[in-house]
């Protein structure tokens, strides 16, 4: 199914989810290649993944140094042309530092690293990343981060909500999302958002770690299934 899809996984110094992303794509038949952060062009690609990890040790601020890696100019250029960009965890942090997504990821509310499964509600399934899910579907994915407390000013928040760009929200197992349910304190319980054009998704949870039953579930596959369906439907380019 994913045979025709061409994906690149960017490797920053201290990316640590790069292999996991490539492997998860592989289980769906999507061939992916690694791109070193010092490279300045990524040719012939439908999807660019900025993987999880601690690029540059998370020193200074998460994503702050990676954002200036040579490869990021190309990522910005590709985002402009409509290439799908998926930022997972540290990838999300880099995307906000690079200005491809609004807001910022702050230190978790309780200051502790959080490594556990969370429940998420699919708020918008009309995106290239979520069309395989039902709207309102509740999924379970792992999180593993110290800085996942999404923050944006009220005006920006209203805009995100108004434009349907809040794609995933933390919730309870039954799908209810009482205010403050986000374990990290994220504003509006935001777990994932898309950019203005809908082709850039940043999310804190790790879909690539939940793509096989033996890993505890397959709820993460939907993200990649969506991308394949999106490509097949010829919707690329927005």
């Amino acid at each position, binding site marked *: 199914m994913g045979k025709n899809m061409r994906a690149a996984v960017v490797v920053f110094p201290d990316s640590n989810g790069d292999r996991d992303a490539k492997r998860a794509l592989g289980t769906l038949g999507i061939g992916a290649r690694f791109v070193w952060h010092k490279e300045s062009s990524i040719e012939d690609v439908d999807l660019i993944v900025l993987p999880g990890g601690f690029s*540059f*040790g998370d*020193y*200074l601020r998460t994503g702050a*140094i990676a954002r*200036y*890696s*040579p490869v990021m100019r190309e990522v910005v250029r590709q985002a402009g042309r409509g290439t799908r960009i998926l930022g997972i965890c540290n990838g999300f942090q880099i995307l906000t530092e690079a200005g491809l997504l609004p807001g910022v990821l702050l230190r978790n509310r309780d200051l502790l690293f959080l490594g556990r499964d969370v429940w998420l509600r699919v708020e918008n399934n009309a995106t290239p990343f979520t069309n395989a899910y039902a709207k309102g579907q509740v999924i379970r994915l792992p999180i593993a981060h110290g800085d996942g407390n999404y923050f944006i000013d009220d005006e920006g928040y209203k805009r995100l909500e108004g434009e349907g760009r809040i794609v995933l929200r933390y919730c309870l197992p039954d799908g209810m999302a009482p205010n403050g349910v986000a374990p990290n304190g994220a504003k509006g319980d935001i777990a994932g958002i898309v950019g203005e054009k809908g082709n850039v998704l940043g999310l804190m949870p790790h879909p690539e770690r939940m793509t096989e039953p033996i890993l505890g579930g397959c709820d993460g596959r939907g993200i990649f299934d969506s991308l394949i369906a999106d490509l097949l439907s010829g919707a690329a380019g927005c």
Partner: protein
Amino acid sequence: MAESEFKTKFRAKVTVMFRKSILDPQGAAVERALKSHTAGDISFPEISSVRVGKVIELTIDGIDAGADAGSVEEKIKILADRILANPVMEEYTVAVEPL
């Protein structure tokens, strides 16, 4: 109003850094980044050392009028020794100003 009831306010800034001989991985990584890929178009190769520390700002309110910046500083130094810094690897400076 009796003078003893008059209260003053201070602001104290405690800057905590690794002692110079201790490895500062964060400073070293930032230094390498500044040297290897420039932030935008700015390049500043003369940067020879980068250290990263913490600034802790404390506001002291309602202390007796008799207190001066010096006595406030003494107290804060005790706190800095016990909790704000680990003297085994960190050193600190305290700056107190009346508000």
